[in-house]
């Protein structure tokens, strides 16, 4: 049976990605109300990544390592663990710190983001980077699930 924590971890991570996409959209053409919303979205995004870190970490240590990893490694796509999972679990560690930095910039510059194009471009680029990394991680999650499914199908057939 699929462990529910994997879905919870993925959903919370995607909410984090969506929160930073929200920050990006608000700051494309910022006004005071939009910056107010961007501050809320950035704080929420950081919180979601921290929650995803804890839930994903618990799932990885308590369930994935002892149960799923050996199945994938014995299946037809061992690279799903050897490459995709290894890259995913380590690149994920970049996200909470990038989100801390982005949130820090939004809270530091506040309404100055309207006139300070340098600071605004910086926040926009960081948001785009977070969204790209987050979506790549979700894609790697799909590859890992496919690796596990392929291994289980091989055992049934």
């Amino acid at each position, binding site marked *: 049976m699929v462990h529910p924590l994997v879905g919870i971890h993925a959903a919370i991570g995607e909410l984090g990605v969506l929160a930073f996409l929200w920050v990006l959209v608000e700051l494309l053409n910022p006004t005071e109300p939009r910056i107010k919303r961007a501050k809320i979205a950035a704080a929420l995004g950081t919180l979601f990544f921290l929650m995803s*870190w804890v839930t994903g*970490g618990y799932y*990885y*240590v308590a369930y994935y*390592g002892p149960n799923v990893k050996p199945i994938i490694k014995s299946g037809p796509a*061992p*690279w799903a663990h*050897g*490459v995709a999972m*290894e*890259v995913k*679990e*380590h*690149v994920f*560690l*970049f996200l909470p*710190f*990038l989100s*801390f*930095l982005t949130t*820090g*910039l939004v*809270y*530091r*510059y506040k309404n100055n983001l309207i006139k300070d194009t*340098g*600071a605004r*471009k*910086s926040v926009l*680029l*960081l948001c785009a*980077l977070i969204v790209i*990394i987050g979506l790549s991680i979700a894609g790697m999650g799909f590859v890992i699930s496919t690796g596990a499914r392929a291994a289980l199908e091989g055992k049934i057939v």
Partner: protein
Amino acid sequence: MRINTAALSRATIGTISAVTLITIIAELSKPFKTLLTNFSGNHWVAKSSISIILFAVLYLLLPKVMADKNEVQKETTRVIATTIIAGFALLLFFVWHFVTEA
């Protein structure tokens, strides 16, 4: 409290670089990976804990040795470049590691 963006950027760069280096060294050196595992029961949990501690220490210490020059674009470019290089370094390393181990 005013947020020091230079220290925040440098702490992010330092943490991302350290995570990448520790990960690669741990895969190449069994004793180092064992040391990480003994630290907290799992090497990934150890890397997570180290990254949090390092980020906090760097952010608290860096303002004592460097001023916040308000060069936000320059600092952000450095962070983005470090993240992209570190991400590709991990990808290429694990592809190489998987191919040579198989």
